[in-house]
């Protein structure tokens, strides 16, 4: 039950893109086409899950024991950068089809703040390993969901009339705002679920 709430929370209520402001650069960058949006979303789910589980172990079994928690930022970003490289090499050898599908989005992911953000959030919220794993996985799913919905809406822009000044990024941002407003409504679900848990 706890994990179901965690999942609903991560996908809908606290969507990393629309409620937590993480990963907005790729959100604006790759959402012009449906294929690129799907590719990026898949790559994020993949990397975010791996990265969070590894950084969790690194934090609890290396940094805490050596008492160098203040180096968290440097260590995490290095782990993520190395991991992305490693995943890229593995996929190239073992699953060329998947590698082709994810394509150029893998290297771009290192600088996606959603990855580092979720890794740090799991530490800050003092999640245990299983909770971190679930939280990361479903955050990734939330990212994919928002990205695909947004790419769909953005496709409609091409056939609609938009004032010249608002074209491209400006209208996309306003649209993202309206989408965030829709996701804001899910806050009610969270409250009722919490109440259900209490019973």
């Amino acid at each position, binding site marked *: 039950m706890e994990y179901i709430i965690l999942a609903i929370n991560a996908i809908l209520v606290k969507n990393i893109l629309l409620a937590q402001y993480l990963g907005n*650069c790729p959100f604006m960058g790759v959402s012009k086409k449906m294929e690129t949006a799907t590719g990026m979303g898949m790559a994020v789910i993949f990397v975010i899950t791996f990265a969070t589980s590894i950084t969790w172990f690194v934090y609890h079994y290396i940094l805490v024991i050596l008492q160098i928690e203040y180096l968290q930022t440097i260590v995490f970003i290095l782990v993520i950068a190395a991991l992305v490289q490693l995943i890229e090499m593995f996929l190239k050898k073992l699953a060329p089809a998947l590698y082709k599908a994810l394509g150029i989005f893998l290297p771009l992911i290192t600088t996606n703040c959603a990855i580092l953000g979720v890794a740090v959030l799991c530490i800050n919220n003092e999640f245990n390993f299983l909770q971190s794993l679930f939280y990361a996985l479903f955050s990734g799913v939330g990212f994919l969901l928002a990205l695909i919905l947004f790419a769909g809406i953005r496709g409609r822009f091409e056939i609609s009339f938009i004032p010249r000044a608002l074209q491209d990024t400006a209208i996309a941002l306003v649209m993202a705002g309206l989408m965030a407003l829709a996701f804001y409504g899910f806050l009610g679900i969270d409250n009722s679920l919490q109440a259900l848990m209490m019973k």
Partner: protein
Amino acid sequence: MNKTISQEFLKGFWEILPPFKLVLGLCPTLAVTTAVENGIGMGLSTTFVLFFSNVIISSIKNLIPKKVRIASYIVVIATFVVIVELVMKAYFFSISQQLGLFINLIVVNCIILGRAEAFASKNPIYLSAADGLGIGLGFTLSLILISSIREILGKGTFLGMQVMWDSFEPFAFMVSAPGAFVCLGLILGIMNLFPKK
């Protein structure tokens, strides 16, 4: 030579003003601009990191092998971010609590890595320093602009002081996540009204 330094410095204020003209670094822009104080804190932290990482990267650009350059840049940037993080916690504790996660996330702010790759790795130290300072201060000004609008409309205050009349009903939409997107989008639209040179 003086002219080029001032040119590199000034271009960050309009020509490629982040995050409007250079659509990078959106996450901190959206997340921390609920209050002017946070906007200033975030802007100056980013400026500090941008300035020093630009200087260091520009001075060691010939020592870094091409293949591992991105990783090396990230290590340099992360070092300065840790410095900022510790200084903020020691001297500006309330702001560091407010900014929270987003101080760590300066590491992955694409503006910084973007400038390192596009500018500091190709230009001499003094130009990179001017570039870092200019872009950083431009970013700070943008953050102050957005956070002023959001704080005044959303809470009726400016830097914590009451500025709107008493019967003013705070426009809570502006300080929430959806308001951030809409506000940024509209400012971008207004800026686009001015034609490019």
